């Protein structure tokens, strides 16, 4: 099973990972704001993640760690 860890406070809410996810599991948070004042990325259904690391490869700020 795959596990994603986000360094939420470094997220700039650019949404590149949201677009890259082949399973459309990522969204920008609608109710949270991080230290930088952005809406950080969140995973909606962790059990459905296949651990392909597309989001992490696309992330310009290296905030995603993928374990499998």
């Amino acid at each position: 099973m795959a596990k994603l860890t986000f360094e939420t406070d470094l997220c700039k809410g650019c949404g590149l990972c949201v677009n890259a996810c082949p399973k459309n599991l990522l969204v920008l948070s609608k109710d949270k704001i991080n230290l930088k004042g952005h809406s950080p990325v969140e995973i909606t259904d962790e059990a459905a993640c296949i651990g392909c690391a597309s989001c992490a490869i696309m992330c310009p700020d290296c905030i995603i760690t993928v374990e499998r």
Partner: protein
Amino acid sequence: MKVFEKPKALTDAPFHYCPGCTHGIIHRLVAEAIDELGIEGKTIGVAPVGCAVMAYNYFACDMIEAAHGRAPAVATGVKRSCPDNIVFTYQGDGDLASIGMAETVHSAARNENITVIFVNNAIYGMTGGQMAPTSLPGQVTQTSPYGRDVNHCGYPVKVCEMLAQLEGPEYLERVAVNNVANIRKAGKAIKKAFENQINKKGFSLIEVVSTCPTNWGMKPTDALKWLDENMLPYYPLGVYKDRSKEEK
């Protein structure tokens, strides 16, 4: 098992780049190449002037800051005095293709044994979005509000095609970072550029077609689409020179 984490050759400093700026991806690809080749201890990077001016904060190897456009000249000096170290420059299009064009062409012509990472986003980013030598015909920027008029401003410079005419350079490739597949290819190209230097083959330049969402005035995701639809037809991806293949 971790399948993806931040490479060790990047420091913990958070990037100052705008949201969605692909500089972060390219920094990571360079750091991954340094990690994979195990050369962090003997790598010396040369930072440019431009958005990546503070690259020395982000790479864990030794870094030098060069005057605007002079990174290949500084790298030449470093490499010639410390031939056992690995020297790379990281430059934008305003730095490499405009004020630093002479240094770039001559270090390529001399086949200096250095690695050049050239980030082409078709605009001056740090100074607020002025027209660059690589801005596309018709592209709207701060200094070309009606679009780049080629009768007045001339045509954009295709750096890889131009340098490929020289005898000197060992390896020239243009890659992009607009999707996962292209990012993987870009990572391989950057690693090869470092390997060429380790094997003392000579000048390698990797041109990375990149985005500038802030100064293009787009959402980061739209900027990737704009890159795909407008930049890639003008700047086709591929290997422009590879002497190791020519010799065979």
